[in-house]
């Protein structure tokens, strides 16, 4: 650890986010804008609030007279542990005592923009291929500048640590220097000779608590560039610290948006029309209002809400209001979705990535092809969409879990006609999310209801609404085509993937507040590199190409834990297995032969197969492999699965992950365990059919989500690494379905090319 910490800030990974060169280029291009990134500008401070005995050091840090250290977390806690990880990084650099560390959610501010996600996702709109470096750099700067100005504080893409480790460390380093400067002033010493440990500034046997120094230190001017703490004998970074949110999560005191209680508050339930151009046509107002405990009904163009003294009474009354919706245009159905995917696959597409000369390599040779189909995937968090809203004079207060707070606030302001400054957003923890909290409709609806009834109100969607109205991760169909060399290895590979241009839809909904059905229509036919992310293999295949065939399926689609990688890995890893079988080769050695340029992935694969006792993929072995890389992390999975009388039985998952250096190994392990279970759910269910414009599933048990009894034995190992941290939230998800499908092939000799697997009994 020491070696890493000593070089903090001098290596590219932790360097300021905007390089000097791109800043200059950008300034020229965009008219003289300049931001001081290395030290957080104090000008942005007014946006944080402090208690009378608290002192604001910068956007990430306050220290109290009593010695408590308040860390500010600009990401949504949805189970991934971010409210422990970022504080742990800060406390480590600061030299704080972990027992003094507290967490606050960040207010909306440009200081907290997640420029990394915007940068990564920009590929969706501006494929980099063919753009000269210099131009790409200018665009990169403009993108980041746009993200900052719009305070795009996205929680997404497993990016929390990758994005905020640097800023958190900078912030802590700055505060640490100020504390040392103040201590040195009192001791008449040189601050460079001071150090910090366990919440004290130390110098030649003397020590002062942070709390005693904070008030004066916060007023000093820090040196530029930041000075980092040298190695510690007992670093907090890398320690298995207990998550800060756990005590409140075992006694029921952790509050989610639906747990807010306000004086005079009432409860709302909602019915929304089907996806598409829907309007509320009629309700039976008299019957509904006659329901016991019902107080108000609020009608909107696309929904109706009943408000009552408790949520159950409100939801029950909705049946009596008997809302009728009218939806124009063709109705969404599974058949129509499948037909749209098939026709998109047959039509022209966009070439998103290419290496070598695929056409030349394939010409005159017999291609081997297979088609795969993946159903839409539901988020299905246990918390349904919930928000609480209260009018407060000219202002509106809203409590909601959101992965994009600035855009949520903007959506509320737009829908209510209030100025954004009049909307006060309280970011809450999410009960799962899995990217469902990128949808802000519940916050907007709660705001509208609160303003109409002039009372504090809490809106929670029923489970049926949650299943039917949250756009799912897109369904996809792929045609994989390969030509082989004389040894049976892959010479050329084309991954042609029919899938909606989801990221255009998401961007239009999130940033331009365009209704889902219109965003869906507008996105039709557009190229979306992020919709086929993860399809370009790490295997050394001389000629390969990835095509996106945008499918107009009528159904709005959304981001989801694992995003496109969750289906592209299924396509690639199943197809590679098929090619190995065709070559008469062991699935492990077939992969290893092509992983010469991907040593990190190769190492994961070798370790996983050693740990799990790979039997060579013999028929009847019931073992399957898959490996994948995304967000700077690598994973290999060995699954043991076979059909049984009770359905598909997944017996064991052995995963090896290289996610770079780990801030907190326990949380890292939780994320991989969780990702594997989430991937398992999507392999066997977490989907619905659509008929007549709506999901056919209404209840949770219809989604086939795994329970404890179906949870396989898991063995997870992390590769020791000094690399920059990779993402952990999603890395477990994509490999599960292909590894199980490959295991089932080994067990039965039957190849399943559709997800979910369980919908197609063996």
């Amino acid at each position, binding site marked *: 650890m020491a070696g890493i910490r000593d070089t903090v800030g001098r290596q590219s990974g932790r360097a300021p986010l905007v390089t000097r060169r791109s800043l200059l280029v950008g300034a020229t291009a965009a008219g003289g804008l300049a931001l001081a990134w290395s030290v957080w500008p104090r000008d942005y401070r007014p946006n944080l609030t402090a208690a009378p005995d608290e002192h604001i050091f910068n956007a990430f840090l306050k220290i109290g007279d009593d010695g408590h250290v308040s860390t500010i977390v600009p990401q949504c806690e949805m*189970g991934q542990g971010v409210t422990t990880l970022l504080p742990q990084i800060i406390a480590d650099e600061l030299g704080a005592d972990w027992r003094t560390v507290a967490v606050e959610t960040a207010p909306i501010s440009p200081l907290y923009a997640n420029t990394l996600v915007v940068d990564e996702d920009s590929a969706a709109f501006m494929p980099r291929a063919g753009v000269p470096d210099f131009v790409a750099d200018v665009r990169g700067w403009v993108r980041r500048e746009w993200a900052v100005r719009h305070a795009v504080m996205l929680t997404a893409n497993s990016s929390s640590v990758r994005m905020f480790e640097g800023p958190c460390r900078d912030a802590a380093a700055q505060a640490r220097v100020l504390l040392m400067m103040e201590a040195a002033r009192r001791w008449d010493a040189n601050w460079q000779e001071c150090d910090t440990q366990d*919440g004290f500034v130390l110098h030649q046997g003397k020590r002062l608590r942070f709390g005693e120094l904070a008030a004066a230190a916060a007023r000093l001017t820090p040196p530029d560039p930041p000075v980092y703490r040298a190695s510690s004998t007992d670093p907090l970074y890398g320690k298995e610290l207990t998550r800060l949110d756990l005590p409140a999560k*075992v006694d029921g005191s952790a509050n989610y948006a639906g747990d807010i209680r306000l004086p005079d508050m009432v409860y709302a339930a909602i019915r929304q029309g089907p996806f598409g151009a829907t309007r509320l046509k009629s309700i039976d107002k008299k019957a509904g209002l006659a329901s016991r405990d019902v107080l108000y009904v609020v009608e909107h163009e696309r929904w109706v809400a009943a408000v009552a003294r408790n949520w*159950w009474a409100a939801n029950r009354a909705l049946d009596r209001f008997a809302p009728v919706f009218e939806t124009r245009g063709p109705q969404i159905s599974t058949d129509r979705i499948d037909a749209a995917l098939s026709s998109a696959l047959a039509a022209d597409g966009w070439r998103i990535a290419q290496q070598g000369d695929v056409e030349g390599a394939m010409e005159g040779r017999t291609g081997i092809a297979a088609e795969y189909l993946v159903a839409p995937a539901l988020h299905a968090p246990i918390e349904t969409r919930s928000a609480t809203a209260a009018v407060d004079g000219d202002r509106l207060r809203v409590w909601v879990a959101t992965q994009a707070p600035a855009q949520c606030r903007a959506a509320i302001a737009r829908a209510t006609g209030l100025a954004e400054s009049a909307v006060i957003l309280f970011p809450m923890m999410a009960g*799962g999310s*899995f990217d469902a909290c990128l949808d802000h409709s519940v916050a907007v609806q709660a705001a509208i209801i609160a303003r109409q009834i002039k009372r504090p109100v809490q809106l929670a969607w029923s489970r049926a609404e949650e299943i039917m109205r949250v756009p799912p991760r897109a369904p996809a169909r792929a045609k994989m085509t390969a030509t082989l060399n004389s040894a049976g290895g892959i010479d050329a590979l084309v991954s042609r993937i029919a899938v909606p241009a989801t990221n255009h839809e998401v961007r239009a909904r999130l940033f331009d507040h365009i209704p889902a059905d219109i965003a869906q229509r507008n996105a039709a036919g557009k190229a979306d590199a992020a919709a086929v992310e993860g399809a370009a293999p790490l295997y050394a295949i001389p000629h390969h190409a990835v095509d996106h065939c945008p499918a107009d399926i009528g159904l709005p689609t959304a981001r989801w834990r694992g995003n496109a990688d969750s289906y592209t890995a299924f396509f690639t890893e199943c197809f590679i297995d098929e090619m190995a079988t065709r070559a008469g080769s062991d699935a492990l050695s077939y992969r290893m032969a092509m992983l010469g340029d991907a040593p990190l992935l190769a190492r994961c694969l070798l370790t996983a197969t050693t740990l799990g006792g790979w039997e060579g993929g013999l028929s009847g072995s019931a073992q399957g492999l898959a490996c994948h890389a995304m967000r700077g992390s690598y994973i290999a999975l060995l699954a043991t699965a076979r059909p049984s009388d009770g359905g598909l039985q997944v017996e064991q998952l052995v995963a090896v992950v290289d996610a770079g250096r780990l801030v907190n190994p326990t949380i890292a392990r*939780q994320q991989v365990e*969780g990702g594997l279970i989430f991937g398992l759910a999507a392999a066997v269910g977490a989907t619905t059919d659509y008929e007549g414009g709506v999901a056919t599933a209404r209840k949770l048990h219809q989604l086939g989500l795994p329970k404890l009894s179906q*949870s396989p034995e898991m063995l997870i190992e992390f590769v020791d690494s000094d690399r920059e941290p990779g993402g952990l939230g999603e890395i477990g998800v994509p490999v599960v379905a292909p590894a199980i499908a490959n295991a089932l092939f080994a067990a039965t000799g039957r190849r399943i090319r559709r997800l979910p697997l369980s919908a197609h009994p063996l």
Partner: protein
Amino acid sequence: MTKFSVNDRPVEYRMDPETPLLWALRDASNLTGTKYGCGTGDCGACTVDIDGEAIRSCLVTIAECEGRLVTTIEGLSRDRSHPVQQAWVAEQVPQCGFCQSGMIMAAAVLLRGNSSPSDAEIDAAITNICRCGTYPRIRAAVRRAGRVLRGEERIAAAPPPGIRPEDAARAVPAMRAPPGS
């Protein structure tokens, strides 16, 4: 009639007797640790202890609770000292936490009757759904809580709430006691 005991206090709910217990707890008693996840008994996030049984509170009406003893996550212990709560923190079980009240209540009821359940008994008793994937840790935490209940192990993983500043300052050198204490 809707008179019964919640967390050792007598209550009478002036609500429709058909109201599911979940909503009386959440919206009338403000006991929000019990969660709504489905309303159909599938997810188990609303699990409470009724007369020693783990019951989905969305499936039982307040009329059916008449005269019974209901314990929610808030009443499991006053200070997070219940072995299941301690084991849950020691094994770092929760992620998003939303389903965890129900999981903990189901585990507490199971262990009260059987402090060393087999895997099959754990699987049969805990049918709740967790989307974050805490399952492997739940198995480990139930076994560990069982060891605590059998007196084989002690855990002090989760601190009690409401620590006084003076006590914090005594335990943590970096903290200062408030003036006048």
